[in-house]
């Protein structure tokens, strides 16, 4: 029973308490880039979840086989293979989404969430726990992307999931779907999360999420200054 409870905990922690984007501040690039529409946010989130699930399971299964010194290239190859795989699936079944995600689909390879989870969790835990962690983190990421996408689409285009929003549809605030609006929306959402959460999130992007923290000489000395 205790086992089950802890697995459930691995899943739910990613939603709010350790939300990878809004609390741990990882994976900023796709969060900002593809969230001009709520739909793209969901698509990107689910694609990332899939890659995360696959890579976490494989890395966790191979964690005793991969020598410590070459683990970074090994992880990269595993992750990149899953990204290629997802790319094929999306291209075949949802070509629209494939086109709108564009290069950012390839860039899932270097998403710090995936690398961070491989390094921090999958290489130290069993397969079941790693899979649950991946699902939790992935859905948390999807949730954050959906939130970002909804805010930007409603304000910037006056639409939401192909529904027109009354007043805003005639006078959309175009800035919100432009790059500048992405930074602004994310800043605002993180501020709201800061306000709501009792525990104070990290003030700066520290080394905790950096995939190279173990290899980097600066780690633990106050970050990458």
């Amino acid at each position: 029973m205790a086992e089950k409870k802890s697995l459930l905990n691995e899943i739910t922690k990613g939603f709010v308490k350790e939300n990878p984007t809004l609390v741990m501040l990882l994976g900023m690039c796709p969060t900002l880039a593809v969230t001009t529409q709520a739909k793209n946010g969901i698509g990107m989130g689910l694609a990332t979840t899939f890659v995360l699930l696959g890579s976490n399971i494989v890395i966790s299964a191979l964690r005793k086989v991969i020598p410590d010194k070459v683990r970074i290239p090994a992880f990269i190859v595993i992750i990149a293979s899953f990204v290629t795989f997802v790319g094929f699936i999306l291209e075949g079944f949802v070509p629209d989404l494939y086109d709108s995600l564009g290069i950012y689909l390839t860039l899932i390879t270097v998403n710090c969430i995936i690398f961070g989870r491989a390094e921090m969790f999958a290489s130290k835990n069993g397969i079941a726990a790693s899979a649950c962690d991946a699902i939790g983190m992935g859905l948390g990421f999807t949730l954050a992307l959906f939130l970002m996408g909804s805010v930007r689409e409603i304000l910037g285009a006056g639409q939401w999931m192909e529904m027109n929003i009354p007043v805003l549809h005639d006078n959309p605030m175009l800035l919100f779907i432009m790059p500048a609006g992405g930074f602004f929306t994310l800043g605002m959402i993180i501020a709201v999360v800061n306000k709501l959460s009792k525990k104070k999130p990290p003030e700066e992007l520290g080394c905790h999420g950096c995939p190279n923290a173990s290899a980097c000489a600066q780690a633990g000395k106050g970050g990458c200054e």
Partner: protein
Amino acid sequence: MKELFVILLSAMLTDNFVLAKFMGICPFLGVSKKFNSATGMGIAVTFVMICATAVTYPIHHGILVPNELEYFDTVVFILVIALFVQLVETMLKKCIPALYSSLGVYLPLITTNCAVLGVTVLNIDSSFSFVQSIVNAVGAGLGFLIALVIFSGVRKKMEYADIPETFKGVPATLIAASIVSVSFMGFSGLFS
């Protein structure tokens, strides 16, 4: 010649990698606190971008395309970049220790910088020639450097600002980035 110039300037300004394409946001927010580290990171990224393009372009057109293995692009590119960064780090350490001490610390961080993988993949996607690819990489790297250096100035000023408690740290930084991004929007339409 004119065409190359347009590629260079648009990669630097209108399609700035950080502020318009959202690539390399992590170092942009993480390493832009001080002017010196911002410059160091910017130069290191520019250097790696140029070299990575010079290495991946021949691999794509010389090995992958003739064997119809284009779909291995992602796997091969990221591996090449990772190995290359390692190589540069080792070489700098041995040959030019002075440069290593100023740039070396940023090199391991670059492997997983999406801007570097991004520029190599974009070069292939936009079917640039070799020279165009290199120019695009130079422009992208310089654009990254400019964005980081400008932003380090903005953040220096922000240290003295009286920011509401909720916005302290990352939210304020992101909103400042948004304003810098608006200023870069002024360049749009420059080459059309």
